[in-house]
């Protein structure tokens, strides 16, 4: 196919995949209780109600995602879950073990119209299962013409083998989902499937399934060398198409949409079998599990239940992570439920993931810059983040950092670089938001001043008996009457607040409130759209809403992770 393309940087990581990729996907026993986060969705069932598998428990809340019963049973409680990823209410379902389905009405997707299919995807509650969690129906209704559909079967992070196993076992369903996605996207000219070269079985299974499917389009399976983070959406697009997603943009801006293989599988189940998204594949891995494996886990299954099925030995576990070793987050509650974005639980021993060393000063060796897939200069970002030099941070494209952690992985001084960047990003975003707010305030204030000036002008004119003769109504509405100093003050105050506050907590709180404001605004806008609004407008708003939510969630998580008292920066960098 196309000439060998590449992305800059990247690292070779020990894969640690064989332990969990050798065994077929297991179906765990039903857990005694399932915990389903409702967010702000209104429950459609009451405590004590019997429910059937697949039954709608709550209509879509502000995240646009409905909640279904993953199995049959009854609703035992609806309670507040303070420790959940997104604190909110959750339903606790006690399975009856019968797995009785609600009524399903599978229709051959080939006979349905695109809006019908899209509605079905939305109703099934499908999100990107690769980890992004972005609602799939939004991606499937792009605002730009799409010429390339990229399928992500890379799974480049160590230990994780959920997609590998799924491709080996369900390649046919994945290919069916892929063709459905292609149809919804207006039949892009080519479909490129990226699979890392450490998964030959998966690549073979996909090739075989494609041969059976016999599609006239250009569908190519591209086996790519294993290199972290080759499975990052932006890196994969660059590898397969040579295109770069513009900074701050989305893949569709360059005519590409990218789906993870798990998402396509879910898409097929939803459209061909009328099954909402009720389960997902979760890798349980790490040396503290005697039987690492993949599980087809019902949403809401407590992580502890899956760990137990893999003979988890807590005493040997040094770090329990939600996700892989590079991007995972520490999991302190083993009762936390599997969500739509849980792809791996890693129970690593001290030998596998030794505790972080004490950070040393940056020696500017540049190893970090050599491995950065976004072509950033991590050492300069660090320097400017420590100095809180936001102008330089923006000049060095801090916001284009994808948090992949390659830089911190190679840093000989063991500096927690990603940590610095996340905090700095929150600050930069908050500052941008404040700048926006200050601008708005200034405009409002200027308009107000102009109005006051005009009115007082009218009054004095009236006193002078001149009303009606002056041309004062033609004065520009934004005449800056003494407004400038006030506006500068506002800006300065904003900057001073951002600069002088306690490190970390304040910027995060600001980022959170900025995100919350944005969410509220966008929600009203979305609700205010009338029937004449195009799908594109609607989707644009939804995408921005999703981004705002992600920002908010990130800030909230980081806030929760902070120690009670703001601590000095944890690294040894002198200021």
């Amino acid at each position: 196919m196309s000439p060998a393309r590449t992305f800059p940087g990247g690292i070779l990581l020990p894969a640690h995949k064989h332990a969990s990729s050798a065994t077929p996907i297991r179906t765990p026993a039903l857990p005694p209780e399932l915990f389903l986060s409702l967010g702000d969705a209104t429950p459609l069932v009451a405590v004590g109600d019997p429910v059937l598998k697949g039954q709608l428990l709550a209509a879509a809340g502000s995240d646009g995602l409905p909640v279904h019963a993953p199995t049959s049973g009854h609703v035992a409680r609806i309670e507040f879950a303070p420790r959940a990823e997104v604190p909110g209410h959750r339903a606790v379902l006690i399975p009856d073990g019968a797995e009785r389905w609600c009524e399903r009405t599978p229709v051959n997707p080939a006979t349905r119209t695109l809006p019908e299919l899209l509605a079905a995807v939305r109703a099934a509650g499908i999100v990107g299962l690769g980890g992004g969690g972005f609602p799939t129906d939004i991606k499937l209704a792009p605002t730009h013409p799409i010429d390339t559909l990229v399928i992500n079967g890379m799974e480049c992070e160590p230990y994780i083998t959920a997609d590998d196993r799924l491709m080996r076992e369900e390649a046919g369903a994945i290919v069916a989902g892929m063709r459905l996605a292609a149809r919804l996207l207006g039949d892009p000219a080519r479909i490129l499937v990226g699979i890392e070269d450490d998964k030959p079985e998966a690549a073979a299974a996909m090739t075989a399934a494609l041969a059976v499917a016999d599609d006239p389009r250009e569908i190519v399976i591209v086996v790519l060398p294993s290199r972290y983070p080759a499975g990052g959406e932006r890196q994969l697009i660059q590898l397969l198409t040579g295109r770069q997603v513009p900074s701050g943009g989305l893949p569709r801006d360059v005519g590409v949409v990218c789906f993870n293989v798990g998402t396509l599988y879910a898409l097929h189940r939803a459209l061909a079998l009328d099954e909402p998204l009720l389960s997902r594949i979760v890798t349980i891995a790490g040396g503290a599990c005697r039987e690492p494996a993949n599980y087809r886990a019902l949403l809401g299954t407590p992580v502890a239940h899956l760990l137990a099925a893999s003979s988890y030995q807590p005493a040997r576990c040094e770090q329990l992570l939600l996700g892989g070793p590079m991007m995972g987050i520490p999991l302190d509650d083993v009762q936390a439920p599997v969500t739509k974005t849980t792809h791996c639980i890693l129970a690593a021993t001290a030998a596998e993931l030794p505790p972080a060393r004490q950070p040393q000063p940056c020696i500017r060796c540049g190893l970090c810059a050599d491995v950065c897939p976004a072509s950033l200069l991590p050492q300069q970002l660090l320097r400017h983040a420590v100095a809180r030099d936001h102008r330089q941070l923006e000049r060095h494209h801090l916001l284009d950092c994808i948090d992949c952690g390659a830089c911190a992985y190679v840093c000989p001084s063991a500096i927690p670089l990603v940590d610095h960047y996340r905090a700095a990003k929150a600050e930069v975003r908050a500052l941008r938001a404040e700048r926006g707010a200050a601008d708005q305030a200034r405009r409002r204030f200027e308009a107000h001043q102009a109005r006051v000036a005009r009115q007082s002008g009218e009054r004095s004119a009236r006193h002078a008996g001149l009303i009606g003769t002056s041309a004062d109504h033609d004065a520009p509405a934004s005449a800056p009457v003494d407004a400038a100093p006030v506006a500068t003050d506002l800006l300065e105050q904003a900057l001073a607040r951002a600069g002088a506050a306690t490190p970390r907590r304040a910027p995060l709180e600001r980022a959170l409130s900025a995100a919350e404001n944005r969410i509220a605004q966008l929600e009203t806008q979305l609700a205010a759209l009338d029937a004449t609004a195009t799908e594109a407008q609607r989707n644009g708003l939804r995408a921005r809403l999703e981004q705002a939510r992600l920002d908010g969630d990130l800030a909230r998580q980081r806030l929760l992770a902070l120690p009670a008292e703001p601590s000095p920066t944890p690294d040894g960098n002198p200021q």
Partner: protein
Amino acid sequence: MITSAPHAHSGLTTGTVMQRVLVAALPGIAAMVWYFGPGTLIQIALAGSAAFAAEAMVLRLRGRPPGPTLADGSALVTGVLIGIALPPLAPWWLAIAGSAFAILVAKHPYGGLGYNLFNPAMAAYAALLVSFPDAMSQWPGPRPLLSDGTLPGLVDSLQRIFTGQHAAPDGFTMATPLDLFRHNSGLMVQQFQTAHPLFARGDLAGVGWETVNLGFLAGGVYLLARRVITWHAPVAMLAALVLMALLCNDGGSSASRGPPSLHLFSGATMLGAFFIVTDPVTTAASNRGRLLCGLLTGVLVFAIRAWGGYSDGVAFAVLLMNLAAPLIDRITVPRAYGHGRARQHHGAPPE
């Protein structure tokens, strides 16, 4: 402390990086010892331990735990580089003064490792050269050119270094090839090369000196292979030197500044190219910036050698470029992902 992603680490430490630098210096040091006597080893030991002691002292004064910082070996590397740069039989206090200057003046007032503006070893070398020009220019002749037994052995060297018989040139000191070219008293290059024993056997850049340079070149190749350094700065510096020498080459007249081979393999060229301009702390951060830094260093080295007041210019060129590095950093921010002229055929991003 919050444990944050990534939770895995390559296991590479600053100490390992510095160890590799020290290992890489070995071939060049060995060549120096063979051609110029064991004095170099004594200088390295003196300068190395002085740097180590100075670092420990400053850390204590600054209230830092000295353990991890000393273990990273950066002070040791500074000391070793000073030891290599000193004339093998220089008096003992030169090495100690140099290391003390490097750590106490050039490094820590700026914030210590990672924050210093100047390469500490080169700053110290330049300070010594300016303050003690005589003592700093007494190089022995290379072993093959001296009659047997003239080059001091270990015991003799120790005595000379510690008892201060440094001043009298007594039969074994000899001008370096770069010195010779500065003071070539009207000879054509050809004549001059046949006339002087340093070049008599067809050596391009002087007996001994070229072997020492080859030794440091070998170390540089090792550092490149271990990915301790990138090729940009050294290749650019060497290329600029060759280019300048070619441009100024007048076919070998008596005013010649020396052929490219002389500039490549004499003086501190290879040491500078692979151990000094590659010092990550004081050079530019991006690869493009390093190319530029290396290029300008090469031009400056040649300019100082050809038209300046000193026979070698590596230290001064490096220090000048250290000053320019922050500026170069500002103009060479690399193009990040998504900021390119890459195809964006479907219009601008949303918003």
